[in-house]
C-alpha cells in the first residue's frame, strides 16, 4: 500500500516535467522542419535573424538567468535578508545595457560582414585568425564550466524535490536539452527559452502564493521576522554583506555582463530595430520581476522553515525544502519546472554558441581559407553532431560532479567577462583599438584572472574579476598605443 502510494506520488511529480520536456523537443522538431531549405548555418546558429521583440527579450533573459538565480540566490536571501535582494537587483541593468550598447552595432556589422557569430565580428575587426581561434577556445572552455554547473544544479534540485536519484534528473532534463538544442539550433533555443522564461515566472508566483499561505500570511511572517531576525532588515546584514560583495556584483552580474558572448550574439539574431526596442523594455521588466520575486520569496521562506540555512544542509537546500514543505504534492512537479527551466535555458543558449565556435569559427573558416568545399549536408551533420558531442561531454562530467561546482560557475562567468569586455567594447567603439591590444587584453587578462583565482589572491577582499578586468584594460591600452593601427579598409567598415 505504502509502496503504491509512493509510486503514485512519484508519477504525479514527474508528469508535468515529462510534459514540459516533451513540448521542448516538439518545438525543436517543428523548428527544424520549418527551417528546411533555408541557409543552414544562418538558421542553425542565429535563427536567420528573424527574432521579434518578445522572443528576443525572453531568450536573452532566460539565457542570462541560471539555476543559481533560482536556488543559491534565494537561499542566500533567506540567510542574509534584504541586502541580498538589494544586491541582486543590479541585474535589472543587464538587458537594456547589452541591447542598448551592442544591439544595433552588432546587427549592422553582422549584416555588412555576413557574420553569424561574435567571433566572426572579432576576426573582421582585428583581422586576426589567431585572436579568433583564442576567442573560440575561451568560449568553449568557460562555457563548459558554466554548463556543468547548470547540469549539476538542476539535477541536485530535481533529486532533492522529487526523491528520484541525481542521475535520473540528469538523464531527464540533461539529455532533453542536448537533444532539442542539437535538432533545432538557435531558433529552437530562442523559442524554448521563451517557454522557460514564462515557466520561471509562473513558478515564482506559485511558490510565493504557497509560502505566504503556509507562513500564515505576509503580515504574520514579517512581524515575526522583525523580532527574530533583525539582521535581515539591515543593508550590511550585521556584517554578512560587506561592501565588497556589492561592488563586485555590480561588475560580475551587472556592467560586465554586456560582453558575455551568449548575450551579444542575440544582437545578430533579431529582425528589426522595433523588436530590439521592445526587447529592452520587456527584458528589463521580466528580469526585475524574476530577481526581486524569487529572492523576496527566499526571505519569506522563514515563514515555512523555522531553522537556519545550516539546519537544512546549506543555502542551496532552502528553495527545494520550501517547495516540498509549502506546496501541495500535485503542484510540486509544476513548481520545479521554473528552476529547471532556468537551468536548461542557460545550457541551450551556451551549447549553441559553443557549437558555433567550433563549427563556424574554426572548421568552416579553416576550410574556406584552404579552398576546401564543405557540402551543406556535411555542415548540417557537423553542426548537429558537434552540439550533441559538447552536450554529451558536459553531461558525462556532470555525472561525477566536482565538489566546488558553484565556484567553477562564477569563475567561468568572470573569465568570459575578462576576455571579452574590452575586446568588444573598445574594439567596436574606439578606432585606435587594434590587434595587439585585443590579443594582449584577451590572453593576458584571462591568464592573470585564472592565476589569481588559482592562487586565491585578492585585493581588499574583492573578487578576482576586478584584477582581471583592470589588467585586461591596461594591456589593451598598451597594445593599442604600441601596435600598428587597423587598416583603413577595416576602419571604413567599423567606423564609416
Amino acid at each position: 500500500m505504502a509502496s503504491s502510494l509512493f509510486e503514485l506520488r512519484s508519477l504525479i511529480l514527474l508528469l508535468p516535467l515529462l510534459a514540459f520536456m516533451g513540448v521542448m523537443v516538439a518545438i525543436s522538431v517543428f523548428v527544424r522542419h520549418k527551417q528546411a531549405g533555408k541557409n543552414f548555418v544562418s538558421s542553425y546558429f542565429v535563427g536567420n535573424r528573424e527574432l521579434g521583440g518578445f522572443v528576443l527579450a525572453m531568450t536573452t533573459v532566460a539565457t542570462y538567468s541560471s539555476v543559481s538565480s533560482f536556488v543559491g540566490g534565494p537561499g542566500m536571501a533567506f540567510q542574509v535578508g534584504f541586502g541580498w535582494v538589494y544586491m541582486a537587483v543590479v541585474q535589472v541593468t543587464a538587458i537594456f545595457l547589452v541591447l542598448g550598447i551592442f544591439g544595433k552595432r552588432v546587427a549592422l556589422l553582422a549584416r555588412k560582414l555576413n557574420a553569424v557569430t561574435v567571433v566572426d565580428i572579432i576576426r573582421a575587426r582585428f583581422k586576426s585568425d589567431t585572436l579568433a581561434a583564442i576567442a573560440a577556445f575561451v568560449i568553449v572552455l568557460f562555457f563548459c564550466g558554466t554548463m556543468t554547473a547548470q547540469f549539476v544544479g538542476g539535477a541536485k534540485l530535481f533529486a532533492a524535490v522529487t526523491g528520484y536519484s541525481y542521475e535520473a534528473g540528469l538523464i531527464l532534463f540533461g539529455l532533453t536539452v542536448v537533444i532539442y538544442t542539437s535538432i533545432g539550433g538557435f531558433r529552437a533555443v530562442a523559442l524554448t527559452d521563451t517557454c522557460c522564461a514564462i515557466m520561471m515566472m509562473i513558478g515564482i508566483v506559485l511558490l510565493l502564493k504557497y509560502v505566504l499561505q503556509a507562513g500564515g500570511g505576509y503580515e504574520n511572517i514579517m512581524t515575526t521576522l522583525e523580532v527574530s531576525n533583525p539582521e535581515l532588515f539591515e543593508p550590511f546584514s550585521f556584517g554578512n554583506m560587506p561592501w565588497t560583495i556589492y561592488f563586485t556584483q555590480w561588475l560580475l552580474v551587472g556592467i560586465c555582463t554586456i560582453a558575455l558572448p551568449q548575450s551579444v550574439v542575440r544582437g545578430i539574431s533579431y529582425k528589426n530595430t522595433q523588436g530590439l526596442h521592445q526587447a529592452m523594455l520587456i527584458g528589463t521588466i521580466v528580469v526585475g520581476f524574476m530577481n526581486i520575486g524569487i529572492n523576496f520569496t527566499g526571505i519569506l521562506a522563514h515563514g515555512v522553515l523555522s531553522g537556519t540555512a545550516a539546519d537544512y544542509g546549506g543555502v542551496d537546500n532552502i528553495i527545494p525544502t520550501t517547495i516540498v514543505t509549502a506546496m501541495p504534492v500535485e503542484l510540486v512537479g509544476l513548481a520545479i519546472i521554473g528552476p529547471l527551466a532556468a537551468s536548461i535555458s542557460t545550457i541551450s543558449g551556451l551549447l549553441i554558441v559553443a557549437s558555433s565556435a567550433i563549427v563556424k569559427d574554426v572548421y568552416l573558416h579553416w576550410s574556406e581559407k584552404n579552398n576546401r568545399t564543405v557540402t551543406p549536408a556535411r555542415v548540417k551533420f557537423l553542426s548537429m553532431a558537434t552540439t550533441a558531442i559538447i552536450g554529451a561531454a558536459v553531461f558525462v562530467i556532470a555525472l561525477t560532479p566536482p565538489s566546488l561546482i558553484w565556484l567553477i560557475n562564477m569563475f567561468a562567468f568572470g573569465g568570459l567577462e575578462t576576455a571579452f569586455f574590452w575586446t568588444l567594447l573598445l574594439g567596436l567603439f574606439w578606432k585606435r583599438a587594434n590587434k595587439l591590444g585585443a590579443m594582449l587584453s584577451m590572453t593576458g587578462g584571462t591568464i592573470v584572472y585564472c592565476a589569481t583565482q588559482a592562487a586565491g589572491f585578492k585585493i581588499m577582499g574583492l573578487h578576482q574579476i576586478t584584477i582581471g578586468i583592470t589588467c585586461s584594460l591596461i594591456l589593451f591600452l598598451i597594445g593599442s598605443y604600441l601596435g600598428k593601427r587597423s587598416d583603413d579598409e577595416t576602419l571604413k567598415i567599423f567606423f564609416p
Partner: protein
Amino acid sequence: MKKNNRASLSGAQKFSLVRREAIYTGLALIGLIIFWLVAGFGTASVDVKIFHLPLWAVLGTVGVWIVAILISALLSQKLFTDMDLEGDDDGK
C-alpha cells in the same frame, strides 16, 4: 520628441546614431547606479516602514526596478531611432 520613426539614413549616419545611443545607455547606467546608491544606502538610516519593510529595502529594490523600467522606456521609445538594418538607405 519621439525619435523612433524610421528615417532614411546613410551607413555613416546609422553608425553615428548607434554610437550616440550607446552613450545614452552608458549615461543611463550611471544615473541608475547613483539612484541605487541613494535609494538604498542613502536612506538606510531613515526610520520609515512601508508594508513592514524599511524604506531603503523598498526604494533599493522595487524602486530601482521601476526606475530601470522608466530608463528602458525612455531609451527605447524616445531616444533610440528606428532604422533599416539592411544596407545603406541611400544606396551607397
